[in-house]
C-alpha cells in the first residue's frame, strides 16, 4: 500500500471514521510495524491534548443571544 494512502487510513482510524476493511488495514499496520505504531501513538497523544481547550462565551455576549431568542419567540 502506498504511504500517503496508509497515512490517510491511520488518521481516519484515529478518529473512528474507518470502515471494516480500513480498520483491519490500520490495525494490521500498527501491529506489524513498530515505526507506524510509534507514529500512531504520537498522533493520538497530540490529538487527545487538543480536546482540553474550550473557552466560554462572555456573559454579555451569551445574554445578547439568549435575549434575541426570547425577543423573537412567537
Amino acid at each position: 500500500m502506498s504511504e500517503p494512502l496508509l497515512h490517510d487510513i491511520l488518521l481516519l482510524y484515529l478518529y473512528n471514521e474507518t470502515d471494516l476493511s480500513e480498520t483491519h488495514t490500520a490495525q494490521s499496520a500498527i501491529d506489524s510495524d513498530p515505526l507506524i505504531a510509534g507514529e500512531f501513538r504520537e498522533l493520538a497523544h497530540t490529538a487527545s491534548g487538543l480536546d482540553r481547550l474550550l473557552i466560554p462565551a462572555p456573559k454579555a455576549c451569551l445574554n445578547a443571544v439568549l435575549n434575541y431568542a426570547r425577543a423573537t419567540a412567537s
Partner: protein
Amino acid sequence: MCKDKKSDQELVSAFLKGNEETLQELILRHERKVYTSIYLLVKDRALTDDIFQETFIKVINTLRGGHYNEEGKFISWVLRIAHNLVIDHFRGQKRMPMVRDTEEYSVFDSLHLPDGNAEDRIMAEQVRNQVRRLIDELPFEQREVVIMRHFADMSFKEIAACTNVSINTALGRMRYALINLRKLVEEKQLVLVS
C-alpha cells in the same frame, strides 16, 4: 433525580413543535465549542463576540423560519455557519488573521476551570494555555481542520465538503497539523498531558 439528557435532534424537534426552552438549552450546550472555534480562527476578542452573536442569530432565524435541514449534526451545522461568517469577514478584508503574540488574548483569563484543588486548576489552566498557543502557531488551513474536527465534531468528509478540498487534502492538513503540534511541543519542551 437525574433526567435523561436529550439529544440535539430531540431538542431541535421540540423547539420546532413550539417548546421555546429547548432553544436556550441548545445554545447553552454548544456556546463553548462555537466560541472557541471562532476565537481560534479570528484571534480577536471583539470580532469573536460579533461573529458568535451573528452565528446564533442566523441559527435562531433559520430554525424559526423552518429552513433547518435535519441532515447531519446540529453542532456541525452551527459551526459551518460560523465558519462561513469568518470566511466572509476575511474575504471582505482580503486577508486572513496573522499569528500575533499572545499578550492580548485575555479572553483566556476568563476560562472556566474545573472544580478541584488549586494545583489541579493551575495545571488545567496551563494545559489550556499551552494548547491554545500551539494551535495559534499553525497555518490557517491546518488550524481550520483541527477546529472543525475537534470542536465541531465534523467528519473528514464533511470538512472536505465545507472547505472545498478533497478528503485526502483535509486528512493531509490534519496530519501535518498534528505533526507540527508535536514538533512545537518538543521544541518548547512542553508536556502535553492527555
